[in-house]
């Protein structure tokens, strides 16, 4: 009895406790379940993979053997073909006596041809070398003659190569006659190819005039008269050009100015491509005319567009042609200028 009373007193709390304990366990249960599921799935995956690997190995072995078998079959075939071919080749070419003789004849002919060609080549080289040598000798002799040109004989005095006791002059004499005397090397004047105003200005400056060497003084009487100061004269003669502003501008100054302006404006551009109108986007598209204007017979007039068409009833594809001109009477209908004669 006492227990019954005790139990009854606890019954509500027991219920609560029971519910509480079960609900507390729930999330853990879920978690544990998930964990167990994961582990199981992973393990099963490993199993399956191992099985597949095993199968793979077996399959590879089988394929290996099968392919080697096939290859051997193929090999036999190819070996047979090669055997036949090699026998044929050897019998036709290698062991064939006449073929061998032919071949040797051809080889000896080739050899002769090559020998001849090589000899020609060697001869050509020798000739070239000889020519080069001769030319070098020529040049040397020419240079010597140019250096020694002062030994040339004059009308009064015979030179050392032109002894009067000789029948004819020494070959050196002839060489000297042909030779042009050597001059001292002058500093090369640079060529100016573009002729612009600035270049002309530069070439009139005092430094760039080619001054010849001062000639020896001629002995004669002094010229009479008061002369200007030589420095003044030179100054005047070699005075640099002072062009006006108009002349100093280049002839195509407008074009240059335009270019200049364009260049300055270009600096401000964000993008080099021109900004095109939208119409050009549709340049390549075909023009789809509006309904007003499209029909098989040409643009339809206002009145016609309300007429319905039945293509099945058409007799032929072409429109009616005007074969005969209309009456002149009706051609002027409504077309005269005077309003008075409305009805003609």
């Amino acid at each position, binding site marked *: 009895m006492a227990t019954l009373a005790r139990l009854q007193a606890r019954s509500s709390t027991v219920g609560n406790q029971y519910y509480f304990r079960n609900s507390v366990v729930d999330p853990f249960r879920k978690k544990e379940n998930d964990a167990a599921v994961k582990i199981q799935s992973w393990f099963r995956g490993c199993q399956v993979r191992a099985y597949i690997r095993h199968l793979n190995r077996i399959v590879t072995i089988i394929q290996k053997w099968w392919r080697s078998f096939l290859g051997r079959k193929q090999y036999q075939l190819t070996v047979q073909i090669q055997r036949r071919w090699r026998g044929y080749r050897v019998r036709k070419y*290698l062991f064939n006596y006449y073929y*061998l003789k032919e*071949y*040797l004849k051809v*080889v*000896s002919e*080739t*050899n*002769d*041809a*090559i*020998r001849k060609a*090589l*000899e020609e*080549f*060697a001869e050509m*080289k020798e000739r070239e070398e000889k020519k080069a040598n001769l030319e070098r000798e020529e040049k040397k002799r020419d240079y010597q003659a140019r250096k020694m040109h002062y030994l040339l004989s004059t009308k009064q005095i015979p030179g050392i190569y032109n002894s009067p006791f000789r029948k004819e002059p020494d070959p050196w004499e002839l060489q000297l006659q042909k030779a042009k005397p050597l001059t001292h090397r002058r500093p090369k004047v640079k060529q100016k190819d573009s002729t612009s105003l600035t270049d002309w200005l530069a070439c009139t400056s005092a430094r760039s005039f080619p001054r010849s060497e001062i000639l020896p003084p001629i002995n004669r009487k002094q010229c009479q008269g008061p002369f200007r100061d030589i420095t003044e004269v030179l100054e005047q003669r070699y005075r640099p050009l002072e062009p006006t502003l108009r002349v100093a501008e280049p002839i195509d100054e407008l074009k240059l100015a335009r270019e200049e302006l364009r260049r300055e404006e270009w600096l401000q551009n964000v993008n080099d491509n021109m900004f095109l109108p939208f119409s050009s986007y549709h340049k390549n598209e075909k023009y789809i005319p509006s309904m007003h204007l499209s029909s098989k017979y040409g643009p339809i007039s206002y009145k016609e567009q309300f007429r319905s068409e039945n293509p099945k009833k058409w007799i032929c594809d072409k429109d009616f042609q005007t074969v005969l001109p209309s009456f002149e009477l009706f051609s002027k209908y409504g077309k005269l200028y005077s309003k008075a004669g409305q009805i003609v």
Partner: protein
Amino acid sequence: MSQRQVLQVFEQYQKARTQFVQMVAELATRPQNIETLQNADGVSFTLSPRLECSGTILAHCSLHLPGSSDSPASVSQSAGIKGVMSLLRTLLLDVVPTIQQTAALALGRLANYNDDLAEAVVKCDILPQLVYSLAEQNRFYKKAAAFVLRAVGKHSPQLAQAIVDCGALDTLVICLEDFDPGVKEAAAWALRYIARHNAELSQAVVDAGAVPLLVLCIQEPEIALKRIAASALSDIAKHSPELAQTVVDAGAVAHLAQMILNPDAKLKHQILSALSQVSKHSVDLAEMVVEAEIFPVVLTCLKDKDEYVKKNASTLIREIAKHTPELSQLVVNAGGVAAVIDCIGSCKGNTRLPGIMMLGYVAAHSENLAMAVIISKGVPQLSVCLSEEPEDHIKAAAAWALGQIGRHTPEHARAVAVTNTLPVLLSLYMSTESSEDLQVKSKKAIKNILQKCTYLPALEPFLYDAPPNILKHVVGQFSKVLPHDSKARRLFVTSGGLKKVQEIKAEPGSLLQEYINSINSCYPEEIVRYYSPGYSDTLLQRVDSYQPLNN
């Protein structure tokens, strides 16, 4: 005022440094000065007032060698070397660029002279400094520094390894990309000298990426640069097939083959050597060289005036022909054999050797090729070489080549025997002056030819002079030919051959005895007895023992 004086002090010092470095560089061009430079110790000089700028400048100074006369010369020498080296090393770090360049030039010339100085350069730690500054300086310095590296690297593999260890290869490869052709040339030369010692150093050079740049250098217009680049590629490719493959993969073969037509002789010589080094390693490489269409252009090089060009051209053809019968066939079809034979005829000495070997290789492959050599008139030329040449190794090569030609069939052997080379070969084999190699080769050649020779007039002299081992073959050949040819039998008897055969002493049962028996069986018994030795004695004995019939 004092500022100017101070500046003047500095100027004087700079002038003195420049003068010193320039004089040392100039002195180092002459070998006799280098000895004195080695012994000079920069430490203890008393400045003589008469310091003149002449070749004997150091003789005017009072030299004070460290240590007394009984100290070993190497110590003083090493101290002396160290003296010069340390002075030049400090000047290498100088502020003024011209002094640096001249100091580098002087170092290069010193190191060029002998390997002690080169080792000293390495020991004084000059190389890292050079390598470091090579990257930044102007082209004169680069040229001078590359010259130093080349001078050090050319003496021995250890020195070259020292250069590689201080990281010079990368900077040299950078120099190869420079604009100035002089710098490129100096760098390529240095790489060449490093790579030519052994395969590891070549591999190091290749790993630094030098090969594509060298191939680019070959295409440059300057001839000197082309020469050096071609020789560098040749020295890289010669060590092993992999290195040769690297050179081929960089596309060098096509360019080299195009440049064979260049008229410069030294360039041709380097190109041909490069191609032969590439093709000598394997069949594939040789085929690749052949595909670059060198035939028949190479044959024109065989007619060149320069000896080295001819030698290298025949080397190239030899390296191609030696690999397979197909390649030899190709060479023969292009008429190469005739050209090589003419080339052999026009040269002397070592220049002939590759050509002779080429003929031997071609003939060794097959009998058709040997026949091709014979109809190109190769055998008379080879026999001329055999008899004329003084050097043993060339004679050995000629003997070997003749053996290869004659060993295939009786036709071939006859072609060789007709030119009367067999007695020459025999005399070479027998003479005591020939080297062992020559003796072995001539013996083999004789044996090979004799085993096929059926040309009896050439064999007959052999009966008289040959040693027993060769005699056996000779008699064997006779025994093969005589049973079938009656004219030959008659000739054999009248020329005294049968008599000689009877005089040969042979052990019963040996091969020689069998041969002799087979020869004897070709003749009637009386003749054999007639010619047997001592037959006249037996006859006389019979006369003595004959009792005339008394009637």
